[in-house]
């Protein structure tokens, strides 16, 4: 409103309260009673702290699920042999040409059947039939088709994997894990070393020092499926499984089709396990517990707001004289409103900042204790002090309105 008065021919310059002055007056007002201000801000601290902690812990745990659900698991299907459960007279469920059958499905990268061979109790793996290497080491022997090896995405230290040709001819070749090779004393493939399983010699084709899937490969001796069947017979009931490595996004479709493709006559003999559905995982995470905690945070905020409202109202009543003085010194009613709103807003914002810090500390502390990676969304950190500010301003509305209604003449009387 302009203050020109034509009759007087003069200008009354309007009263003003710059934002900077409003802020410094508000901070000075807060610091008049530091202890009380701290206690008042406590509710906001707790509310915002709980809010940040809950969001942070939720993000932290779901990031753990994210890390479980990575690209590798998303492109992996396992097919299990459950023939015995369906029909006790059924033989092994996987046909001899299982790899080729599943390979015809779209989106399959590598696939193969494998099982752990049940050797007799006195059959061990040795580096040599006699002499120093004759002491056996207790190592699993795994029958694995070449596709099952490739699907594990091995990294070879030396040599190569056995291929379809070796498999078709049921050749006595083996791929050993690096740690097994070390225990057997195999350091180089230059000398064409062999391992003896029982008394059968197997030429070591390659040494694998890392795999992405099926870590058991590292701890065992892998031989072609056909060779294993020729020497030790078919797999026991339910022992055989198939590992299918798929293209990205194809896994669930392949899991759906695998049983029919492998055993069109008895698809019920096989059970395909698809990767977990990420949507289901997320749904688990935002479960009831988090909502309960968020509700708790909300309750804390409400309590904080009531605390601020209460204290500010008391302050308004206590500081009636000050309000009167300010009005006498030229403060308009809305300047008084702004001052008290700023005061409660600053109180809320400071509570929010402290609460954010405490919340982040809680998340980091819990993550450290559990050896997790702490994850706090930046938006939560930015939003939290603003929530505190909003709480403070809302809480200050009524007291500030009351302050603006103080009659200066009345307030200055004593």
């Amino acid at each position: 409103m302009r203050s020109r008065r034509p009759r007087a021919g003069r200008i009354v310059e309007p009263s003003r309260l710059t934002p900077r002055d409003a802020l410094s007056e508000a901070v000075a007002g807060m610091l008049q009673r530091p202890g009380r201000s701290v206690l008042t801000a406590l509710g906001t601290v707790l509310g915002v702290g709980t809010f940040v902690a809950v969001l942070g812990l939720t993000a932290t745990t779901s990031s753990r699920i994210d890390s479980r659900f990575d690209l590798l698991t998303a492109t992996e299907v396992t097919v299990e042999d459950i023939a015995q459960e369906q029909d006790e007279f059924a033989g092994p469920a996987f046909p001899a040409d299982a790899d080729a059958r599943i390979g015809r499905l779209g989106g399959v990268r590598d696939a193969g059947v494998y099982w752990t061979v049940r050797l007799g109790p006195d059959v061990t793996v040795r580096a040599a039939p006699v002499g120093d290497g004759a002491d056996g080491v207790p190592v699993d022997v795994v029958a694995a088709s070449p596709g099952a090896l490739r699907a594990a995405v091995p990294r070879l230290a030396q040599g190569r994997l056995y291929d379809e040709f070796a498999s078709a001819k049921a050749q006595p070749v083996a791929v050993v894990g690096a740690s097994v090779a070390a225990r057997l004393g195999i350091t180089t493939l230059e000398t064409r070393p062999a391992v003896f399983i029982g008394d059968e010699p197997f030429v070591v084709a390659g040494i694998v020092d890392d795999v992405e899937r099926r870590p058991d490969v590292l701890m065992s001796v892998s031989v072609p499926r056909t060779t294993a069947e020729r020497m030790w017979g078919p797999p026991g009931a339910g022992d055989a499984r198939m590992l299918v490595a798929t293209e990205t996004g194809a896994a669930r479709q392949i899991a759906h089709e695998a049983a029919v493709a492998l055993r069109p006559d008895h698809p019920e003999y096989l059970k395909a396990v698809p990767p977990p559905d990420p949507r289901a995982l997320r749904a688990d995470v935002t479960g009831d517990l988090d909502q309960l905690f968020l509700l708790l945070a909300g309750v804390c905020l409400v309590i904080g707001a009531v605390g601020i409202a209460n204290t500010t109202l008391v302050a308004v009543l206590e500081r009636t004289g000050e309000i009167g003085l300010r009005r006498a010194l030229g403060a308009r009613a809305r300047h008084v409103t702004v001052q008290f709103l700023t005061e409660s807003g600053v109180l809320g914002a400071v509570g929010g900042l402290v609460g954010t810090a405490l919340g982040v500390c809680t998340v980091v502390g819990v993550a450290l204790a559990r050896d997790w990676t702490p994850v706090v969304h930046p938006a939560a950190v930015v939003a939290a002090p603003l929530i505190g500010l909003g709480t403070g301003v809302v809480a200050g509305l009524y007291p500030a309105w009351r302050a603006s209604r103080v009659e200066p003449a009345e307030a200055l009387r004593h």
Partner: protein
Amino acid sequence: MTPPAPVMEFRRVGLTYPGPPPVRALCPCELTVRHGEFVAVVGPSGSGKSTFLNVAGLLDAPTEGTYLLDGIDTAALSDGDRTALRGRRIGFVFQAFHLMPHRSATENVMLSMVYSAVPRAERRSRAREALARVGLAHRVDALPGRLSGGERQRVAIARALAGRPSLLLCDEPTGNLDSGNAETVLALLGELHASGMTVVVITHDREVAARAGRTVTIRDGLLAEHPRDTAPRAERNPA
């Protein structure tokens, strides 16, 4: 010689509280205070002194008549403009001092310039200047709690002066002071008057009133001018 310009001019100014029942707190009265005058408004408690203070100090709007402050018709002003005029043209001194206990003398004085758009940089120097003028140059950083009653009232006067008002409006300025401190405060008001400040003191104390060049009594809401035997003034209120 033309008399100095009037600072405050009451033209049949009266105030009636609407009630019920309606209470006539200030009967329509005429009063002109000219630049450089020292006027005492004297009356017992309940006489309407506070109402006079509120109207003169623009804290309350009169229900009848015209009040000109520095020639500005205050009746025509909006609430916000009246507030601004009050902040800029009137310096208040209260019986209860109304100092902020957690702020130093300088900061208390600076408060009077917050709402009148005095640049922040200027406020401190003006506050120091005002404190020096009331003889408190050595106590600029003291908290009110560490000051004597007289010193507190001088800080309050400095606060009123720092806003460079046209009118110093004092409400029982010595009411809370012992005689020694009251004497220093009254001497200060006398000095300020001597240096050209327009001072209006509202009091129930005849001794305080005796300091003023002119005395107006108020009783039952009625304002009456008393010619002083000792020092009759040339420029008497024509009404």
